[in-house]
């Protein structure tokens, strides 16, 4: 006799429960319980168990246990997995090519070309010699302690993923800003992507793609990092001065002209802030993604934890900090340049 027997008997479901009993082999726990002779009704109201799936199962064997729920989810996912792979595999294949290509290119170009090239890019987007100096010192330092290769791996993954985030995120943000319906549908998804612990969405990805493929971590990074650029594009366009939009309408702009000549340029500071956040978040994720074979500094951190190599882990962590500071300063400086040219 269990607590909720009365529920099933009053509903007249005893027969249905009994069916479950005859079918299922006795579980270990039930067996133990039986031999010990416990499992009697609780003596007081104080110990009344919540009518959960497991508690109800005690009274009625046909009632599913909670593990069966998660199991059902697993089975459901596994059954659609193959058909999903058929669609998703070719769709995401270019991502693997991009990542492998970027890694190959970055690592097989000699350092004396890569470092000056990076410095030239920094100068081009920021026009600040101070920043160029800072980046040069940081890169040389990383190279000197033989972390150059790992840092470049991390950087090339971030470049590819952040670029793809912007490529997809900005149009999604624009679509959201133009339709309230789209915004209502997208925001819960973005909220979920942002709050889900990053490890959790590695799980279905591991089932879907083979761990040896680089697109596995690419997708994980993009899903995690695309959120801010979408949000801030949407916000930026929605915040564009209503008066200016009205003027654009009054002078007969088409909606395309309005978008590309007024809304996007005026939203640019916000979009760039989103790009900055996206880059920062891909850096955070690239470390976690080393769990699923992403190369780079994250591998060293992981190695530090696994082999208790304190020094390796700490120095790799510092290397990540340096990369983060470089990326943040460079994107912020270019953002400041945009802001300066169009303050209202």
């Amino acid at each position, binding site marked *: 006799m269990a607590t909720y027997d009365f529920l099933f008997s009053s509903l007249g479901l005893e027969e249905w429960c009994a069916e479950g009993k005859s079918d299922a082999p006795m579980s270990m726990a039930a067996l133990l319980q039986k031999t010990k002779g416990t499992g009697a009704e609780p003596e007081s109201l104080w110990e009344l168990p919540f009518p959960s799936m497991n508690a109800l199962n005690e009274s009625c064997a046909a009632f599913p246990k909670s593990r069966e729920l998660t199991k059902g989810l697993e089975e459901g996912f596994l059954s659609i997995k193959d058909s999903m792979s058929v669609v998703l595999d070719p769709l995401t294949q270019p991502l693997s090519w991009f990542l492998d290509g970027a890694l190959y290119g970055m690592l097989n170009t000699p350092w004396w070309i890569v470092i000056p090239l990076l410095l030239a890019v920094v100068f081009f987007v920021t026009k600040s010699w101070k920043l160029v100096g800072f980046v040069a010192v940081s890169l040389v330092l990383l190279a000197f302690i033989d972390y150059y290769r790992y840092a470049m791996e991390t950087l090339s993954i971030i470049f590819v993923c952040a670029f793809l985030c912007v490529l997809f995120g900005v149009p999604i943000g624009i679509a959201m800003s133009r339709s309230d319906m789209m915004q209502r549908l997208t925001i819960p998804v973005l909220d979920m992507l942002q709050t889900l612990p990053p490890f959790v969405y590695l799980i279905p990805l591991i089932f879907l793609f083979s761990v040896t493929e680089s697109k596995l971590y690419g997708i994980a990074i993009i899903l995690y990092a695309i959120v801010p650029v979408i949000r801030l594009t949407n916000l930026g366009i929605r915040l564009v001065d209503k008066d200016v939009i009205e003027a654009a309408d*009054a*002078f007969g702009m088409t909606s395309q002209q309005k978008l590309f000549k007024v809304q996007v340029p005026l939203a640019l500071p916000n979009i760039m802030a989103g790009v900055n956040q996206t880059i920062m978040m891909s850096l955070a994720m690239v470390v976690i993604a080393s769990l699923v074979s992403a190369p780079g500094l994250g591998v060293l951190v992981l190695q530090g934890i696994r082999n208790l190599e304190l020094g390796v882990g700490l120095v790799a962590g510092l290397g990540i900090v340096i990369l983060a500071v470089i990326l943040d300063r460079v994107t912020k400086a270019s953002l400041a340049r945009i802001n300066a040219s*169009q303050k209202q």
Partner: protein
Amino acid sequence: MDRNIKISIRNLYKIFGPDPVGALEHVRGGMGKAELLEKHNHVLGLQDINVDIHEGEITVIMGLSGSGKSTLIRHLNRLIEPTAGEVQVDGEDVLKFDENQLRKLRREQMSMVFQKFALLPHKTVLENAGMALLVRGYSVEDFEGDAKKWLARVGLEGNEYQYPHQLSGGMQQRVGIARALASNSPVMLMDEAFSALDPLIRSDMQDLLLELQDELQKTVVFITHDLDESLKLADHLVILKDGHIVQQGEPQEILMSPNDPYITDFISDINRARVLRVRSIMKKTAEAPDDYAGDISDRDNLESVIALSDGDTSLTYRVVRKGKQVGILDMKELVKALVPTEGSEGDARSRY
């Protein structure tokens, strides 16, 4: 005035709320703004508006905030859709236009000047001035000459390559006006164009507008909440209150015979000597008076006549227009005209 009617607004209604058409029935049945809001939770924006806007004139629509004047001007180029009524431009009903026709109307027929300037902050003054042409697909090289000409005309020579945020408010609004002029459209809509400027600059801008108007003869629709401004600019004055027209007509006539206590209230504070003109109070006659102190123009304001007479009320002046006598003005009449008139209720609401 024997000018053509450029824009004609007929029985225009605008109701804001979830079911404007349903609410329209109540308004047609005689329900007022307050009652409609209380019982049906709809806001009556405009109610039975009829205005003829003549070509080449400045039509000023005046009202306090909430009177619906900004809503009204946005119906002319359909930035706001009306609930019922017609807006005809050159005899064609704008409300029946499809998207392309409407865009053409906005690009070629009407330009607009905004209270908050609404310039593009990321474009230079030159590009802003040429915005209408840019929208039509011309490149900067194409319209550079035109845009520069208009910028120079509004007094912004040498500022072409600056950005709007580098200019003062008055200068930004000059860019706004240059932008409207450069579009070369016959109609200019000005939505409280000078309200955000300080009084001295506002007065300058009013003079600039009158000067340009003498030269270009555009059809201007000007929105303002400032009575002095409307009296200075208006050829035709429309006074709005709570979404309906209280009185419209020639500003001098409205001053001399206000038909509503609301207007009487409104005009009681102004300096009548400065805004009233000789032609509104003179006795119309071609007969020369026996004895007159001198000639005055019918467009002089009373202030200047008082100054001329040195305060002597016994004098009589001959009023001339283009060398011919059109009337006489007794100084005693002038002094009487300075006393604000009581509201002559019972008059027709409007001149239609």
